[in-house]
């Protein structure tokens, strides 16, 4: 209990705009927790409340048995006394200090002279492969180098908790992967607790011990990446992590029926509801040119081609099956030849496997926020 970081009943709003809504969260020492969600879901605000950069209206934030915020007991430990490290989206390296001074800063202001003397600054720079840059100024560094230095600065004082505020989103794709790998490696070797905010699900899967998917200021699902991937808790989570295909089903005499009137057997127990939504990964949708080639056991839906984009080994294909659109990945070797010449509106057939579908009750009050594709 004492070894955990806890957030209970956290509330934060700007005016009438509720950003964080009665949020609860718990993480173990040394755990890497990723806060994932679309922009505006309150993840950055939650992180800033943890850092002490925002003051919540109410709730409790407890770092391993030390309350750093407790509205009832009027505790609000300021950011500089929370013993944390933080890495910002904009790097926030102070331009008037060299790399060495930037990294040494958390040690210096915490009066950790002996750590500086023992070479902690050089060590931290070395950890992110920037040992040769110590005497440069931030303006002389590339974006990737700057963010590595910012990571080194966040870790230099060896805080128990390191907060990452979308640290990779200002980097281009290649650098993003490199720095991501470095952060992962550093966490493995140093074992700091981390809260990492991102809207990119691949970052979240790669880094997190657990993911916390947020929606409108609340936790939608908190679980390991594998379990989130295998079993998204809600339709919102399923869509956000990339199950972009949505198929609405209603009870019929034969079992379930699509909006376009095709019957199917879901082959599983479904709670007592009139309608459900199936969420399907693009990879689990197969493309055929006619219904006869669809293997038995799969649900075949007539569709027409909307677009196809070449992506190397695959084509990204969008089709319309009745009122619903489906995204899928078609193997270039199998389908490239005809897809290259195919025109919009060309009739096709898509096939779905009921076992790969995630089924959610069709709720009237579940507006789905558009997530990252």
């Amino acid at each position: 209990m004492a070894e955990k970081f806890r957030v209970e009943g956290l509330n934060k709003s700007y005016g009438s705009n509720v950003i964080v809504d009665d949020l609860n969260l718990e993480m173990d020492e040394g755990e890497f927790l990723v806060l994932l969600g679309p922009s505006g879901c309150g993840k950055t605000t939650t992180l800033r409340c943890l850092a002490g950069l925002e003051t919540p209206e109410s709730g409790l934030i407890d770092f391993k048995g030390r309350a750093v915020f407790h509205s009832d007991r009027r505790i609000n430990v300021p950011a500089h006394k929370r013993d944390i490290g933080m890495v910002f989206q904009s790097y926030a390296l102070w331009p008037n200090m060299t790399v060495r001074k930037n990294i040494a800063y958390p040690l210096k202001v915490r009066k950790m002279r002996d750590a500086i003397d023992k070479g902690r600054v050089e060590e931290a720079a070395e950890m992110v492969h920037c040992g040769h840059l110590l005497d440069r100024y931030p303006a002389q560094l590339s974006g990737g180098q700057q963010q590595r230095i910012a990571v080194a600065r966040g870790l230099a004082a060896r805080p128990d908790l390191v907060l990452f505020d979308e640290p990779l989103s200002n980097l281009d794709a290649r650098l993003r992967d490199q720095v991501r790998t470095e952060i992962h490696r550093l966490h493995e070797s140093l074992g700091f607790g981390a809260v990492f905010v991102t809207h990119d699900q691949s970052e979240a899967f790669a880094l997190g011990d657990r993911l916390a998917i947020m929606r409108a200021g609340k936790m939608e699902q908190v679980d390991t990446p594998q379990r989130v991937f295998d079993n998204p808790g809600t339709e919102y989570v399923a869509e956000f992590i990339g199950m972009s295909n949505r198929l609405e089903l209603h009870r019929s005499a034969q079992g379930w029926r699509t909006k376009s009137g095709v019957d199917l057997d879901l082959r599983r127990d479904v709670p007592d509801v009139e309608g459900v939504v199936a969420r399907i990964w693009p990879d689990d949708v197969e493309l055929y040119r006619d219904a006869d080639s669809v293997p038995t056991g799969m649900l075949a839906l007539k569709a027409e081609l909307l677009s196809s984009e070449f992506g190397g080994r695959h084509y990204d294909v969008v089709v319309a099956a009745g009122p619903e659109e489906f995204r899928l990945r078609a193997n270039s070797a199998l389908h490239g030849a005809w897809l290259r010449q195919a025109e919009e509106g060309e009739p096709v057939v898509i096939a779905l496997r009921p076992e790969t579908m995630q089924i959610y009750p069709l709720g009237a009050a579940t507006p789905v926020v558009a997530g990252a594709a």
Partner: protein
Amino acid sequence: MTTTETKPATKTATRARPRLRADSATWRGRLGYAALILVLGYLIVVPLYKLQSLAFSDGAAGYEAQYGRPDIGETLRTTFALALGSLVIAMVLGTILAFATSRLPRRMGFLRIVPLLPIVMPSVANIVGWAFLLSPGPGYLNALLRHLPWWSGSDTGPINVYSTTWIIIITGFGLTSFVYLFVSAGMQNIGSEHLEAAEISGSSTIGVFFKVVLPLLRPSLVYGGGVALLLGLGQFTGPLLLGQNEGVKVLTTEMYRRVSESPTNFAAAAAAGSPLVIFGLLVIFAQRYLLGNQTRFVTHGGKSFAPTHGRSAWAAVVVAVYGLVALVLPLIGLIIVSLSPYWSADLSWDLFTLDNYRALFDTPGIVESVVTSVVTSLAAVAICVPLGLGVAQLIVRRRDLPILRLLGDVITALPLGIPAVIFGVGFLLTYTQGPFILYGTKTIIVLVYVVLMVPFATRMQLTALVSMGNTYQEASAVSGAGPLETAFRVTLPMLKPAVLSSVALMFILLTHEFAASIMVRSATTQVMGTLLYDHWTNGSYPLVGAMAILMSVVTGAGVVIAMMIGGRNVLDNL
């Protein structure tokens, strides 16, 4: 949701410590800002309040004394004529200069500094210089003009610098630099694409100016015009030094007369200043209402106003002519008088002497006044920088303290809208009675200087803070640095260019300060400007000339030092 939770007693005890620390830190912050606003409020608002309550006391006797005079209509007319006339001159010249400096040929780039130089020259020096040139009798320029056939045969004229018209013209020249500051800043925000597009569409340089530049500049013109109008209404130096000869009166000189006559009539002086206070308050509140949140007006990026085409020689000529008229001519007048044994229209080169400069060091009080000016200015600047940073920090970063923010914003704007003369009189009234009797000390001069400069210190650091963003300070906080440590290790070093610019500007303005100084000085505690005025009224003109040159040199030295510390672009940031 955790209210009902009960904890073992030992745990509560160990957790009590962070609570105390945290709460006291939060409260320290709030109390700090509250104390800051309280101090500023006391300094700035109390003198104004005392003046008004005095003016209204005794059945508003002050108002009756001031506004019951038969010549009050004339005084008000002159005041507004001075404000509007000098405004028009300053707006036209300032805008033309700003456009011209943006189009200087590359080799003439150094002329960019010229429109700012008149700010470096003290206004008392400038005005005295003009008097030496354009006084109807012995004015050198007048004497020169009388050699022209159509003005020959007269002993006086053709120009009378003591007339209302010429006071307006000279005041307008002085205000031009301020309008130039605003307009050229506004011009820098106009993307050069706009101009290039107009040129490619076939507009001439003049066409671009009237059809593109002027319309885009409207916000800066309105803002700069507002400031120039306030400054024009509060003009004191020109009317006092030049207007006495022919009895030209404005409200500010009336205030001075009321305070310096015997017995002193503070109530009437306060009443005389009221229209200026009211107008100043109107402008401040209108500005707050129109501009709203300052942060919305910070823009970044984009190509700045740096036209590669259309650079031309005419621009250099315009700037050079302005420099000649606004700076070189009055300086020549001062130099000639300061080198002569007496001031007369007949120049006799062989009488030129350095005696007046030697007299600077022999005349009691002159060296002392230089020291007093420099020391009080530096002290005020040293106080203003942290005060300004504190208020700027409050306005930009503490959205959680809305009332203190608003107070800080409005209080620090007051000295910009309300003329320095009024603060001078207010300070004289406030600090010649208890609880703090400071009259005759340097402290009262420092305090009034602090009040006059707080707006500049605040605004300049505020702009810099806004463009710096929050993240650098947040990064420092999460690294473990407290607010003061963050201020000294991160914020101030990063604001260094802006701070140095504001220091340079404040030093320049304060070593020139005359309007408030003349009210709070005493016979034994004088600054350069007030002592110069005494010698001017005594008629020791050659000594006045030498003193004016000395004043300019002291300010110039300050600017050079600021440039040496802060780099050459210290003045560019103005």
